[in-house]
């Protein structure tokens, strides 16, 4: 397959992940669109250097998260106060079964926004079902470090849900 088409094909298969990353790291629809464009551009630039031994999804997370965190750091208004509704996006409702699920998802997005950049990236990948090795490879952490951080995040998440429901 031609590299252009192959890249677009791979991007199409994983485009949803890029959207989720954009939602986790950019607060307004405009910022999200900018970030999506930036991530696609960085991925396209880096694509010739992608080593096939690494799964595309892991490599994509690495490049996209770097782009997202880089953009977040360079944005002066990055730490503005946001509501969960902003994080869910104004262009689509959450596609979940019930109001309860809807609340849980909103809470999850709110909590995600409060996490430090690296933990947020770790949480994104863990929620997507990536294993510790893939997360470590994308973020530059050891597998044991990923495990420890993830455990801490799960505890924090459970605590936050308890507080929300109290």
């Amino acid at each position, binding site marked *: 397959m*031609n590299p252009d088409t192959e890249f677009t094909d791979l991007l*199409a*298969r994983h485009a*949803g992940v*890029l959207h989720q990353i954009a939602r986790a790291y950019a607060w307004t629809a405009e910022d999200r669109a900018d970030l999506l464009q930036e991530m696609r551009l960085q991925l396209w630039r880096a694509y010739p250097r992608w080593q096939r031994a690494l799964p595309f999804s892991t490599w994509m997370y690495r490049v996209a998260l770097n782009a997202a965190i880089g953009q977040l750091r360079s944005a002066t208004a990055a730490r503005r106060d946001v509501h969960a509704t902003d994080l869910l996006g104004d262009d689509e409702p959450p*596609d979940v079964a019930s109001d309860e*699920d809807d609340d*849980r998802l909103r809470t999850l997005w709110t909590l995600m926004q409060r996490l430090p950049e690296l933990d947020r990236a770790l949480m994104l990948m863990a929620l997507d079902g990536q294993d510790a090795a893939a997360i470590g490879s994308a973020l530059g952490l050891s597998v044991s470090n990923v495990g420890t951080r993830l455990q801490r995040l799960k505890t924090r998440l459970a605590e936050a849900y308890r507080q929300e*429901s109290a």
Partner: protein
Amino acid sequence: MSATPTPSFETLQGLWRQDLSSAQAQASAQLRHAVLPALVQRRLEPGPASIAFSLFSIALLGAYCVQQWGAWRYLLPGAALLLWCVLMLAAALRTRARLAGLDYARPVLALQRDLAEVRAQRLRQLRWGFVTGQVLWVVPFCVVLLRGLTGAPVLEGAVLDFALKGLAWTAAAIPLQWLAWRALRRVWHGHNRLSRWGDALAGDDLAEIQRLLDRLQ
């Protein structure tokens, strides 16, 4: 926000996956509108090398025709080759212009139909190019080449006789090829191999883009 029991991480992963699929659907649509047109244009815009080669051939054949003006026996094969080159270039540019003019905001099925029409158009061009090309690019080409390079009166006596017979045989083989092609299509009707040939002939780039569009659907 209503009071909700603490969900397990697996439950959150499940919710996340649902959310991800809706993001995926949105992203696919966006990608189709944002990236695909640029990709098609990049992949299918006329190749500068092939255009340069066509223009070079047209220029050479044009010069030959001017040189042979009045010597109809030698002018005719050159003019026929010139016309063939011009028509092939025009057909290629027309297909490419049609691809560049595709509207990616159309529904997927409509866009698929447009691409299928372009594919059929390319195959038709190729078929006619092949049929006429085999008549023109053997005997007339040799005549033009020899006459152009040496200026010798190559179409005289036995050579003229041989050339005319060669042309007649090539032309006579066309109906046979057509019959063979029809028989092959009947035998391989609905077979993948035929479709793969079609893809290869119409251009792998077009087939790849159609497959990509299928996936984005």
